[in-house]
């Protein structure tokens, strides 16, 4: 391995026989993306063992779900992967819809797809900004945040909040899209690609950057599958698997896009996968926007008011709608007894909800399969034999979000 060779050249071949040293990293460390704690066992400068310590942000979301109605739980999903709340919202409400056996309207499908892809761009931009910052490139951080602010404006214009959106509802969305919003999204999408090209121009052939990520943190396809890695970490190792294509949900099977796959399995491969995913997300978003602009006359929510709130103006006029509104607000919607699992491809990987219902208006048990939690298991095999400074690059390429890891 390249790094081992470097160390042997620097410290001599016998360096391996020296006493090992234990170093604690985190939970308050600038490059651990929050409150991750890693205990590293070092031989000289080579990492021989890592222990990951989690739980510094355990907020008991699964326990909360047993005490909140389904609608009340939607805001909690925002704060799981707080870089892409739209995906979390979508995953949760789609689980409820699957349990209820509801089919959503085509316009809602495209709207959710569009928002999920914008959330993917937003999530990957933060990974890009902070990842590059940790490797010493401040400019990228500023550029990425400039684009993220534009995305926040878009989310704010449709949902009223910058990133804790709580926008999706079981059976639809909080409020439909409108032409002025389309113009904003169009404006963002028109300008975005140039920025990404500029960022790629800055990084792709930059020796300072490549030297920190090339051949660092290699994991084979077999190990990646065995450890349950998902998302860009799995595709970076050459596994051609994407839930959006292989188990299609929403409108992904009607759109034209490609799955990003790299074969090498190092940090650079994961970087390329994410960069390509952002391009594909841009492509999907453009197609969805084109279709949404023509769908303005169609309904966005389903008409079953036992599931979704009736429009406010109807509540003031119609007795039946008032009753539905009252029941939904006081009791919440009821999901028939049974169990259901639904997973989507969130920016970080497979995000799944396992819902057990006893027929009431609160979930009996809600298990959350969070991609970051599982992906973090890759840290141990990836960091073996690497240098201490490479750990920063490896954690950045795994891209864990601690809100999702600890839930």
């Amino acid at each position: 391995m390249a790094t081992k060779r470097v160390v042997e050249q620097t410290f001599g071949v016998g360096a391996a026989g020296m006493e090992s040293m234990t170093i604690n990293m985190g939970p308050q460390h600038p490059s651990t993306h929050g409150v991750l704690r890693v205990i590293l066992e070092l031989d000289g400068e080579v990492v021989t063992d890592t222990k990951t310590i989690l739980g510094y942000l355990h907020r008991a979301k699964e326990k909360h779900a047993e005490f909140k109605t389904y609608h009340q739980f939607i805001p909690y999903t925002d704060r799981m992967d707080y870089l892409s709340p739209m995906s979390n919202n979508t995953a949760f409400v789609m689980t409820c819809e699957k349990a209820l056996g509801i089919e959503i309207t085509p316009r809602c499908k495209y709207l959710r797809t569009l928002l999920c892809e914008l959330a993917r761009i937003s999530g990957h931009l933060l990974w890009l900004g902070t990842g590059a910052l940790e490797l010493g490139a401040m400019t990228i951080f500023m550029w990425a945040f400039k684009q993220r602010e534009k995305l926040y404006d878009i989310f704010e214009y449709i949902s009223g909040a910058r990133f804790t959106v709580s926008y999706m509802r079981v059976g639809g969305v909080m409020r439909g899209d409108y032409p002025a919003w389309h113009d904003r999204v169009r404006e963002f999408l028109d300008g975005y690609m140039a920025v990404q090209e500029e960022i790629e121009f800055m990084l792709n052939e930059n020796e300072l950057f490549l030297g920190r990520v090339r051949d660092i943190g290699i994991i084979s396809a077999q190990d990646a599958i065995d450890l349950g890695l998902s998302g860009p970490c799995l595709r970076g190792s050459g596994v051609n698997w994407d839930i959006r294509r292989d188990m299609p949900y929403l409108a992904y099977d009607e759109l034209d896009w490609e799955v990003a796959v790299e074969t090498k399995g190092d940090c650079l491969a994961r970087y390329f996968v994410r960069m390509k995913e952002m391009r594909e997300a841009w492509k999907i978003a453009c197609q969805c926007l084109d279709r949404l602009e023509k769908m303005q006359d169609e309904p966005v929510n389903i008409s079953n008011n036992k599931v979704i709130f009736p429009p406010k103006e109807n509540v003031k006029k119609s007795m039946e709608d008032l009753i539905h509104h009252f029941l939904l607000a006081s009791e919440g919607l009821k999901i028939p007894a049974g169990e259901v699992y639904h997973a989507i491809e969130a920016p970080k990987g497979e995000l799944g909800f396992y819902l057990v219902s006893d027929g009431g208006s609160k979930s009996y048990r809600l298990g959350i399969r969070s991609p970051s939690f599982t992906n973090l298991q890759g840290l141990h095999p990836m960091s073996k034999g690497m240098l201490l400074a490479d750990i920063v690059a490896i954690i950045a390429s795994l891209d864990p979000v601690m809100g999702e890891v600890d839930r």
Partner: protein
Amino acid sequence: MSIYTEKMEKLHQLLTNKLREKFGDAISDILVHNDKNPEMSEITVVMDRSVVTEALTFLRDDPSFQFNFLSYLTAVDYLAMGRDVRFDVVYHLLSLTKAHRIRVRVPVPEDDPTINSVVGIWGTADFHERETYDMFGLIFQGHPDLRRILMPDDWEGHPLRKDFPLGGVKSFYFKRATNPHAGEPPNLVPRIRVQQSDI
């Protein structure tokens, strides 16, 4: 009948034949859920905990299933539903080559909360089993390092059990919870910044 439901029917048939033949009565049930919307149906296999490692290894290695990816491992506490056997350990399996999923449920009684670990079959189970132990108190025999993962090491109780309260747990960690500076030497106490107008 769409392609998806056909695929599910076929998988259900295969599971019934092969698992029943190999493990007999240890497979107590193979269910297909969601009659309301067959497009969204899911298959659940309920099995006895004595065969869990063999059956899951078989599901991973058999060429007609190829469940090479463990999506999710968790448990459910059925205390509030009043079931006889209190816990269920739930495995969600996924095949990356065949693109299908199943769920495996294994009942575990309260008085002997042990089950064999599947870390040897899928490495994914490492963190997930630790989390399940942490949250439910189920012992996974054969796990290399079964410690708490989310809660502090000296935490009492298992939070996701139904008899554990949501909030109001006394923070026994902080002797200084009410007065953060109690017991400190006075020069270490931060100055209390009162608004002074002597400028």
